[in-house]
């Protein structure tokens, strides 16, 4: 199991590394988000379309946005670890 997990982890690292290396070699840059590309495609299909409602609040700038994404990931990771730990401890108590 340990070997399997280690090789799965290596596959993941390899996948991300390949994704970073290959497009750069092809001259692509920026790694534009697909959601943004879809919005551009809408503008091509229906140039007259205007979004009829704006977000209530938008992060002021890319830096703040990356901060909030990091907060989301950190919150998620913290909770994930907490709940895994809760289950592990409960199972230990049940055994003893």
């Amino acid at each position: 199991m340990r070997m399997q997990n280690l090789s799965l982890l290596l596959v993941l690292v390899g996948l991300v590394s390949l994704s970073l290396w290959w497009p750069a070699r092809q001259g692509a840059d920026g790694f534009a988000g697909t959601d943004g590309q879809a919005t551009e495609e809408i503008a091509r299909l229906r140039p007259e379309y205007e979004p009829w409602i704006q977000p209530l609040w938008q992060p002021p700038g890319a830096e703040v946005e990356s901060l909030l994404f990091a907060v989301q990931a950190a919150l998620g990771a913290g909770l994930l670890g907490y709940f895994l730990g809760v289950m592990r401890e409960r199972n230990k108590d049940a055994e003893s």
Partner: protein
Amino acid sequence: MHIAEGFLPPAHAAGWAALALPFVAVGLGSIKRILRQHPERKPLLGVAGAYAFVLSALKLPSVTGSSSHPTGVGIGALLVGPAAMSVLGMVVLLFQALLLAHGGLSTLGANVISMAVVGPGVAFAVFRLLRSWSFPTAVFLSAALGNLATYLTTATQLALAFPDPHSGWIGAFAKFAGIYALTQVPLAVGEGVLSVLMVNVLLAHNAPQLRGLSEGGKLA
């Protein structure tokens, strides 16, 4: 798969919201039932929600030179059932719509359908279908195909709202699916691999709560 705020016409936005509502209602009932009948599975709900929270925060590069999200809802569908995931997925989408302007309130219904209903539904069905054949393959394919299904649903939703003037909504679907699908394939593979890893960890440390996941019994 986050359709941006205002980028579905009001009628479409309302239609998808109306369609999403019963799924979320059933999901709330399912969560209540889990808490009442299987209180020992409460932390599993936390794991499912937290995992989706982490994964949907990660914008990953793809070999196509674009970047996109994993969804993280596949594992939750296996742990607590696809119904409960419609609620947990909606919480994630709400957080991103309100704090990150990623997705939107008007498009929440459509995004819930793609990420929190279709994705977990496909993941659950694939897992059920393949579980007795090969457990790790079932986990891998359920997360990977659930991820792809989410993005194909988004492409369908956009194509229905913005049909191509010449080739109709099929042409528009080809365009939107072209944007999402290719980029998404390596990310779907990645999410599949991570899911197997995650389930391995869960089975190693939390076997009592997961009895049924690997033995073919009924989960949640």
